[in-house]
């Protein structure tokens, strides 16, 4: 089942997407049709924009996760890392607000990217240099980041300076030509991710390392560097998500980003990326993130399901989507 870099490269030339990769998009289409039947307001402009904008966080983080997972790794720390980056960012912005005014937002954003990249690098280096299972490493850092944000907020909430609030709000709530800014930011991240994974040597090496690290090593691929870089990309994606997240509610709390890692991994896997590595699907990941958000939205919009059973129905839909995907191959 392992796919060599040559095969991946061959597949790239037949881009756009092959029929067998269309699974997640078919699933998304089915959910959209069902949703429209259940409640007409599901496809109303406001609702569609809400759902897509909301899915931006998981989508952006999941782009990074696509690199980590396709290169044979796993990152459980993304939700906690997002909360931690958010906290650092708010503290920096609040500290600089009196002297820099709105400029503090730019410095805070830049700092977020640096912190995110460093957090990712830490994960990556412990995995590759320390030679420890990524599951264990990121389980550890997940706890560390979560504890740090709880410590930074004293268990309460860490709000952004009121003066910065209005200047920063448009990053989540604003729009350009009717398209909300978070959607534009995710599009940029998605396009960069797709270019990096499908069009560059690094992308092909990612898949090769994930498919078979030994073979990749003998072929002269610097396995540790490729894997570490995947975690750094993940960290940067987390930071971008944090930059979009802060203006939404204007605060970091100990529950920020809780359990997002599971949503992110689910989105990546629904999208067709192999959890054991060797195959990455950027656009599939995006469809996966949209599917998750659309299902959650539909659960509220329909009156079919008892509030106690919502999570069960979500679980069933995800499993069915995966089965459909498997059998359409």
């Amino acid at each position, binding site marked *: 089942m392992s796919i060599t870099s040559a095969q991946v490269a061959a597949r790239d030339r037949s881009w756009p997407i092959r029929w067998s990769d269309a699974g997640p998009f078919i699933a998304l289409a089915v959910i959209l049709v069902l949703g429209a039947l259940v409640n007409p307001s599901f496809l109303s402009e*406001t609702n569609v924009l809400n759902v897509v904008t909301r899915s931006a966080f998981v989508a952006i983080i999941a782009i990074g996760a696509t690199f980590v997972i396709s290169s044979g790794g796993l990152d459980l720390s993304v939700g906690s890392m997002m909360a931690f980056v958010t906290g650092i960012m708010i503290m920096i912005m609040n500290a600089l607000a009196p002297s820099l005014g709105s400029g503090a937002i730019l410095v805070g954003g830049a700092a977020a990217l640096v912190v995110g990249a460093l957090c990712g690098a830490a994960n990556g280096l412990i995995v590759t240099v320390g030679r420890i299972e990524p599951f264990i490493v990121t389980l550890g850092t997940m706890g560390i980041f979560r504890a740090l944000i709880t410590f930074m907020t004293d268990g309460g909430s860490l709000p952004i300076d009121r003066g910065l609030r209005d200047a920063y709000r448009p990053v989540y709530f604003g729009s350009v030509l009717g398209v909300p800014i978070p959607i534009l930011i995710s599009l940029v991240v998605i396009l960069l991710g797709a270019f990096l994974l499908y069009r560059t040597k690094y992308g092909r090496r990612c898949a090769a390392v994930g498919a078979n690290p030994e073979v990749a090593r003998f072929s002269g691929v610097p396995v540790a560097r490729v894997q570490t870089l995947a975690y750094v990309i993940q960290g940067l994606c987390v930071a971008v998500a944090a930059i979009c997240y802060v203006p*939404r*509610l204007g*605060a970091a709390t100990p529950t920020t980003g809780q359990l997002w890692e599971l949503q992110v991994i689910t989105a990546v896997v629904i999208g067709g990326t192999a959890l054991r590595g060797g195959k990455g699907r950027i656009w599939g990941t995006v469809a996966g993130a949209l599917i998750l958000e659309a299902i959650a939205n539909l659960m*509220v919009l329909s009156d079919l399901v008892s509030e106690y059973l919502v999570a069960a129905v979500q679980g069933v839909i995800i499993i069915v989507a995966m089965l459909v995907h498997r059998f359409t191959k």
Partner: protein
Amino acid sequence: MNTFARTAGLSAALAALIATAATAQDGKTVIAVSIPAATHGWTGGVVYHAEQAEQEIEAAFPDIDVVLKTSPSATAQVSALEDLTASQEIAALVILPFTSEELTGPVEQVKAGGTFITVVDRGLTDPSIQDLYVAGNNIAVGANTAEYLAEQLGGEGEIVVLRGIPTVIDDERIQGFTEVIDGTNIKILDIQYANWNQDEAFTLMQDYLAKYPHIDAVWANDDDMLLGVLEAIEQSGRTEIRYALGGNGMKDIIEKVMANDPVTPISTPYPPSMIKTAIYMTAAQFHGQAPVRGTVLLDAPLITPENAEQFYFPDSPF
């Protein structure tokens, strides 16, 4: 022989040391406080108020030593109880149990050693263990909010409700609320879980707004969630929503109440500072022999602009 003598000498010295340590503490009555670690806003408030109470009581009553221990899980709390009792003689234990079932046995063990037991908020499965029980009234939190809302809406209208994490606390609030609303012509359009989480409340409110073209009022059964709800309403630009109410008395919401906010004119307290009530009362038992055995149920009066000052703790994280 030589080794034996040395060991004996050492043991004697050690014993003497332990004895001095013990007498140093003998003069003081130890009140142990075991509470959950700060994992969200409300427990953050509990930790803050417990720390305040520790300082205040130790300053006021030099004969009392308050020992504070926070635990991140029920299992950790059981271990904490063992540590607290193993290392010293404790006169009283003030405990906010993580879960009722898991902590009942361990607290009973502590009680067997003759310790005075004060239980806060979540009751144990066997109430006969506690000497003093201090709690808020979750049913009143729901009912008082519902009564206010019904009065303001004139007994008519369509509302949506956001509930927290499936627990007894959440069930009681919803029960208190719906019982009052059932007696009016107000229609509850929808009730869904948002897990006492700002983010989830934000998305749920967006969905409610998409689903229902007209909503008169919203009740989020916790102020943390209310913040998410308010953000979603603001973003939607919808103006027909006359009231968005919460509960718990979070400082950000109290500030709104103080500022006569038209949409959020009130809150209801379920104060994390109840831990302070419990510690103070327990101290009274030991310092002044003031009898405190019994049950204290804190009421949930409406927080209005007139009395908001009494419920406002600007330095608390909650």
